């Protein structure tokens, strides 16, 4: 079976700075794949490049068998991908309800209602905050909202960037539990970027290590967790 998402030799630039240096990566249907790496390694750039912003300069990105490398961002996102981006980027002056509806763009109201009920089952807190403005939520609630908004489109592939950043351990556990549950119950495919490598590798089926814009290691989650160089670089010393 062909991969749901396949990157081959992808490079990306911010101005004159090359952020990605020929990335090859595959995500199969139904997998949780994690991308770990230090700050500034290019993890978030890779997530955004998949969505066409910035656009890949070389290489190809194929989603569901089709080349999406040259498509506009909104056209890519209408094909069943959703991203909960770095920094959450919820709309601060919209209510929680409106933020969620933004995720269901192009869906019929009944579908949006059903998707919203699923999001509330996952994050009951959002239901309590429905009429509150996004900008007034706590960090953990904003993260739930960002993930919930991404799920509103009922994506096949969820791109999840640093869901644990700045959150209390209890909330992190809750969010990781939700990802696992979604993957098991609905077969949702997830590409997860994390600094918290230990938890990410335990959750994921497979992982990639990104260093300075290039993939240096790949393997199953358990395999990577066992490697001494991974332990030294990403697991020990605070994470």
């Amino acid at each position, binding site marked *: 079976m062909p991969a749901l998402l396949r990157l081959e030799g992808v490079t990306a630039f911010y101005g004159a700075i090359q952020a990605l240096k020929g990335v090859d990566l595959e995500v199969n249907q139904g997998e949780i794949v994690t991308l770990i790496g230090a700050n500034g390694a290019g993890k978030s750039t890779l997530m955004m490049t998949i969505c066409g912003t910035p656009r890949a300069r070389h290489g190809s990105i194929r989603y569901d068998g089709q080349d999406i490398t040259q498509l506009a961002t909104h056209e890519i996102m209408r094909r069943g991908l959703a991203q909960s981006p770095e920094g959450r980027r919820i709309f601060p002056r919209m209510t929680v309800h409106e933020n969620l509806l933004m995720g269901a763009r192009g869906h019929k109201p009944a579908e949006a209602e059903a998707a919203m009920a699923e999001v509330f089952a996952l994050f009951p807190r959002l239901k309590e905050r429905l009429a509150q403005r996004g*900008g007034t939520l706590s960090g953990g609630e904003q993260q739930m909202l960002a993930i919930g908004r991404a799920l509103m*489109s009922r994506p096949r592939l969820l791109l999840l960037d640093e869901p644990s950043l700045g959150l209390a351990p209890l909330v992190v556990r809750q969010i990781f539990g939700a990802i696992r549950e979604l993957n098991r119950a609905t077969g949702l495919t997830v590409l997860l970027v994390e600094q918290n490598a230990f938890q990410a590798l335990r959750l994921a089926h497979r992982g990639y290590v990104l260093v300075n814009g290039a993939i240096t290691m790949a393997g199953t989650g358990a395999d990577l967790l066992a490697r001494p160089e991974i332990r030294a670089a990403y697991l020990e010393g605070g994470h």
Partner: protein
Amino acid sequence: MAYALQQLINGVTLGMIYGLIAVGYTMVYGIIGMINFAHGDVFMVGAFLTLIGLTLLGGFGITSVPIALALAFIAAAAIAAVYGWTIERVAYRPLRGSFRLAPLISAIGMSIVLQNFVQVSQGARDLNLQPLIPGSIRLMNQGGFAVELSWMQVLISVVTLAILAVFTWLVTRTPLGRAMRACEQDLKMASLLGIDTDKTISLTFVIGAALATVAGLLFLLYYGSINFFIGFSAGIKAFTAAVLGGIGSLPGAVLGGLAIGLIESFWSGYASVPYKNVAAFSVLAIVLIFLPSGLLGRADVEKV
């Protein structure tokens, strides 16, 4: 008392026209954070297009006022919408992502282009239209001074308030309005949610231009006389109204328009006509010192 009432009526009417133009400024500012300085000239072009349309229809023998007005307006609004779309496409979109002043300068250039185009093609003199909607209600008569409320003045207020209501609904309740607000708050995130941000911005300009045409039509009918320069003065006043009301707020735009209209009208009536603009802009300066985000502007505290 009678005199004050008449000034009130005149001021409200003037304010409604400013408010209607201000709605266009505030919508464009709301979505891309840019002052579209060509908006006043789109209003002027709208007034000219309506006048040309009415003249042509008269030539074809269509003299029924409601039908002629409706036809002329539809044609003018359609052409103005194309103008609005083209201005955004040609003068602003290539500069998106450039430094903040670039589109502003481009907008001033666009404004000059439109003014000069109309001056050259239509001439610099005033063009006149005989009153199409005559008649008025005499509200009171005090010592020989009659207070009149004309049907035209009623029409201006009704149209402005109806448009305000429709657009407030559009922005707060519809998917298009949500998409517009999403573009305003985070353009890249909006595109990550599958919104065609270029199309949404274009649509905002098209709507703004159509609104400016409504204002142009009402201005033409009310004053019966237009020239290529009306867009400049009305545009500056409407821009002031939008800032005074709180730029980005639709009700604020109309409220600001009313404030400017009333100040002008009462100052002209009781103090001096030549200084009416000084009065209006002084009030703007004073309000902004104490309420920097305008009367209805937002001053949210946002968590990061």
